[in-house]
């Protein structure tokens, strides 16, 4: 069993107005040292796969077809081997 930790973010070429709004708020806190705020989604899921290679290709397919829209989003994930199903 593998636990996939997936992050989906807007592509760099796409304006992220949420990120901009948060960055602006951080600026008004007086923390001018922070920039480049990007907002995204975090998704966890369990994959029942024989090995890491097949778990990787399953998660890749789910990301491409459903979790991220490649026109506007990038995704990134990490796989962690777990003994039991995580979460509910």
């Amino acid at each position, binding site marked *: 069993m593998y636990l996939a930790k997936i992050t989906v973010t807007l592509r760099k070429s*796409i*304006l992220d*107005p*949420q990120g901009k*709004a948060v960055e602006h708020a951080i600026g008004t806190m007086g923390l001018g040292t922070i920039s480049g705020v990007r907002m995204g*989604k975090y998704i966890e899921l369990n994959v029942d796969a024989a090995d890491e290679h097949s778990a990787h290709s399953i998660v890749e397919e789910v990301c491409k077809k*459903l*979790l991220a*829209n490649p*026109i*506007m989003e990038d995704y990134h994930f990490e796989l962690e081997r777990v003994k039991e199903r995580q979460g509910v």
Partner: protein
Amino acid sequence: MRRKVKFGIVVFPGSNCDHDAYHVCKHVMQQDAQFLWHKEADLKGSDVVILPGGFSYGDYLRCGAIARFAPVMQEVIRFANEGGTVLGICNGFQILVEAGLLPGVLLRNASLTFVCKFVHLRVENPNTRFTTQARHGEILRIPIAHGEGNYFTDPDTLHRLEYNKQIIFRYCNSEGEATAEANPNGSLANIAGVINEAGNVLGMMPHPERAADPLLRHTDGQKIFKSLIAHYVLDEQPLVAVESERS
């Protein structure tokens, strides 16, 4: 008697403009209308399939992303690929881009706020089955109501859309100028509606069904329904009333 056009209105959990679309097709335009439940992979002989506005599946993940995998959508995709007429309004437009039936995506409004108001639309291409009852450059007043209507696509696709005249409506001011001020959501090139290359699938963020019943005083949205009806029945009997209205 002239034959009636059969409109099929898809109902997803969270659709909330389905009854408006049904009312306009059935009672205002006096055509046949039926609801199509998202779990049934059957379009029941519809001539025109409407994907209505709303918040299908609670807009979870991305607007339209979950709806795209509903059983009925597999039929809608097949129907569209065979040349069937599909009209996506608001959330329906979002579903069409997620399903890959139309190019581009609909991002969060640049303002980050939900925008609900009447806008002016300029008809960019009257030579489609959805717009024959409008003139080129005609200005329509139709309301929008969305939080994610900011149309975006890559430069190559935009160029192709322009070249093929696939941009059907642009947001404009009352003079018909597509200015930045008249753009309610940050859409690329003021795009409010696009059609596929084959010309049988139209997606638009504005709600023509909300500007169609004369009781509500705004009827510009009727032009889209009238165009579709003309597309199916004109061969049998010209729409004399509609013609005289234009002159």
